[in-house]
């Protein structure tokens, strides 16, 4: 299980990188932190003989506060997100989520782009970004495009990108002032077994908008807009409606086969974590109305 021989290319522009990758086809792979790629190559799962290093592309770096949100380059590491004042300013739970990924070594080199492009179902960012309505910017056949995270992933280890396409970065909109974001995860093995994120916007203790994303159990993140269902609800009416909706969702969400945990238990966790995320989301949104969302995530 040694890393096979490969040739390393170091383009300095997105265009050059994309063209190189398009020419190489299946024989080439984009290479960011390498935390997934190199492991997969050692295991013989990816057989590319050419690696195109994206770390030299300036467009892929940097976290920038812009009107209405924050731009995070695909080449930004989890550790950079975790430590970013810009991220903390508009969406602290994103920084908290990043701080829970993997371990310090992986966070130091592993990138958000690499996480999304590898499309391992056990992903924290994929779930989180779906809940907050983020948009991914891609470079497809020489053109820049925008896609929702839950559409970017097609299935396990599969995205909409073709050889020569790149992920440029992620646009994360600033949540409304009265919204709160909660990210919860249950980690039994090395990667999370269930990830749940909720964004709840409330006014005077009543829901204005709500979105829930459930990941890591199915082939891709399931995102549901619960605004219609929950609008105007608060207190026990909210709780009982959440209970019913979440039970329905947990019972029907598609699951990946051959997991160490049984479907029954996975559905139970989806129900428990989703309920918790939505409950905490409303409570915190209510208590922090008017202030930027500050509530972090948590380990179940």
């Amino acid at each position, binding site marked *: *299980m040694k890393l096979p021989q490969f040739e390393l290319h170091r383009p300095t522009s997105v265009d050059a990188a994309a063209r190189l990758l398009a020419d190489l086809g299946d024989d080439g792979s984009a290479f960011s932190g390498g935390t997934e790629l190199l492991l997969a190559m050692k295991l013989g799962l990816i057989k590319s003989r050419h690696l195109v290093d994206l770390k030299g592309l300036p467009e892929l770096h940097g976290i920038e506060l812009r009107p209405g949100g924050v731009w995070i380059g695909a080449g930004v590491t989890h550790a950079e997100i975790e430590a970013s004042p810009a991220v903390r300013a508009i969406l602290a739970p994103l920084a908290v989520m990043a701080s829970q990924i993997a371990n310090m070594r992986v966070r130091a080199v592993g990138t958000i782009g690499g996480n999304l492009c590898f499309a391992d179902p056990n992903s924290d960012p994929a779930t989180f970004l779906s809940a907050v309505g983020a948009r991914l910017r891609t470079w497809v056949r020489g053109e820049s495009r925008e896609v929702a995270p839950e559409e970017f992933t097609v299935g396990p280890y599969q995205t909409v990108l073709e050889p020569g396409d790149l992920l440029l970065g992620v646009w994360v909109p600033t949540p409304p002032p009265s919204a709160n974001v909660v990210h919860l995860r249950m980690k039994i093995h090395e990667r999370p077994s269930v990830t749940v994120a909720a964004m709840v916007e409330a006014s005077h203790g009543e829901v204005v908008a709500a979105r829930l994303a459930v990941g890591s159990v199915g082939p891709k993140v399931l995102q549901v807009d619960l605004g219609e269902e929950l609008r105007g609800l608060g207190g026990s009416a909210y709780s009982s409606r959440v209970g019913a909706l979440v039970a329905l969702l947990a019972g029907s969400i598609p699951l990946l086969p051959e997991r160490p945990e049984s479907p029954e238990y996975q559905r139970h966790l989806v129900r428990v974590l989703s309920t918790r995320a939505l409950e905490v989301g409303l409570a915190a949104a209510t208590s922090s109305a008017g202030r930027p969302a500050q509530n972090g995530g948590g380990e179940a």
Partner: protein
Amino acid sequence: MATVITNLPSSKAGSVGHEVPRSDARVKLSGKAQFTGDIRVPGMLYGAVLRSPLARARIRSVDLRAALALDGVVAILTGADLMDMDPYYGHALKDRPIVAIDEVRFVGEPVAVVAASSLSVAENAVNLIDVVYASESPVTSLQAALLPDSPLVHTKRARPGFAHGLGQLPDPEGNVCYRYGFSKGDVSNDFVQAAVVVEGEYRFPAVYQYALETHSVVADHRGDEVTIWASCQHPFLVRQEIADLFDLDLDRVRLIVPFLGGGFGSKSYTKMEPIAVAISRKAGRPVRVVNRVDESMVTTRRHNMVCRMRTAASATGELIAREADFWLDTGAYADNGPRVTATAGDAAPGPYRWRSVRVDGRCVYTNTAPAGSYRAFGAIHLQWIGELQVDEIARRLQVDPLEFRCRNVLPVGGEVRAGAKPLDADLVGDLRKVAAAIDWGQPRTEGRGVGLSVGLLAAGAHPVSMATVRLGADAGATVLVGTTEMGQGARTAMAQIAAEVLALPSEQVVVRGTDTQYTPYDRSTGASRSTTVAGKAVELAARDVLAALEETAAAKFEVPLDRLSARAGGVTDGERWISHQDLIRARFGFAGGELVGHGMVQPSRGSGSFAEGPVFWEVCLAAAEVAVDPVTGVVRVIRTASIADVGRAINPQLIRRQDEGATLQAIGNALFEEMRYDPEGMLLNDTLLDYRVPSALDVPERMTCVIVENGDGPGPFGAKGCGEGAFAGVTAAIATAVAAAGVPMQELPMTPERVWRRIQTLGHPDREGEAS
């Protein structure tokens, strides 16, 4: 010339009992320590192993042509190369061929070994070997192996290995390769008479020892001799097995053992050495064979087990009878399974005053990777079960579990098992200490549980160890002892023992790795024996040197020998002092030479202590507090306390580190580690991504190690071993704590899902009806 000093130097040299820093810390932290994988020998080739993809199959044909044609391939070993020898080995049962011959018995069994100029060439060649198998349906579980019409994993009767030490081998019954049991009293009658009976069926999983360093060997076979650098815990036993296997003289087999990157039993006895020697023999050049992690995971593991146990007590709160039947899955080859079975059997009753006991353990072959030693084997398998039943009885009788145990445990000198050494530890004292350390009896938060456990582990293995101490003309000493340094701090402790006797600072005592050509014999590094047995040999060897020093000093000072003692790097008669250096000079009449002392521990020489088995009973006693999340089933270990009943603490810091390491491994074994196989016998979780080991995040808020020094050990200065007891003790204490939180579990590991399911079936955390 020799200086005699009359204002005596202060005697703060005392080394034993001090927290001397690890002598290997600096080289290891700076990356300079040498492990087997770092070794390069001139002309060395790289080995790679072709392993079976099937759990049970006949080998129809092996085609090596494409692989041999590859540039850089020097030799390929298959079963066909072993026809000129008896290719079977195994220290307990000689049941295992060096590489598969005609059939394979588990997924991962070595079928061929390539030696090539580089590792990548060797790996590529492995992929070019074409083997045609005829698959047969495998026996991959205990349940399947025990069916009356189960296929046999081995059809030939196994021969005893060179060190099976288990008496007459019983006739094979189906897939059962070894059976160990005993009984006393009238068990059936006592169960009829009992006021309370608790019984149940319990499961323990297969787990991997997960030493950071995988099994690594460099072997150089030339002519009628072989040199082996190996990551092995027991170099002298490997030497013996290799000599037997390859028909070489013992002194022609040389084992050199550098640092080990952890062992925990995974490197006990012979593992990858025969393969490396065989391919070197064929290639005519030295060959290096270093496992990948997934290969080491099919090289050895801990036995999974099914156990049925029942325990009876009287209405007045006396434990009266226990019965245990258990089946240990030893995989395709016995490895240390028979010994594990016997040790598990000895641990089954637990240290209580039984009127009657019946224990029956079986060691069972299946088509899975072989299982062998892992820290605290046997005790870890049985203790949690027995202790859960003790707790359940205490609960039904409404007696405090601590008081219940104190009333029922064996007293000092009590009979643990007929014919074995009487109990050499104060368990009531230990129980009270561990209870105090965990604030036993204090009110607890909701969802929390506190548990205790007590058990015994037969420790010390066979008490045969020798050591040599050389005191040089510069008064620095070198200890030659066969104990393997595998992270436990053995070299530091050995240095302290010699330093204590010779009144030297321990930094002035050097202990290096084993080279069987120069290092005197030591049976093994395991069974918590090194400080006790090998340490005693070091003490005796140092005393031998001291005797020579004192002889010279007696002549010099013209005083009788009994007036002399070692002090601050020299010898004193209480008034005058002379350095070791000057004594050596005085003895030989010039500025050179050295004093050499020998120490030997053997059963017949011991003061009774080494003559009876076991060398000592290692106390496995601990307490734990856990939090159980009833919604997700997640168990968190909040704090633990363990007893290190060590007789005399040679180095308290090393002892605490032992118990902390064991506590973390116990958390892994109790809560999440488990090797999962598919029905075809393929290991599903052979990477750290899905085989979860404890990490820094699993460390409890508080781990207390209570060191008990009663001076009652047979080792140096009254010491006895430690390091395994906490593993069995903490695992069982976590199980009893989870039960105390309302969820008695009958299967380890207590994964979130299992705990959640159990809560579902109990209906309510306030349980009833489980064991009947």
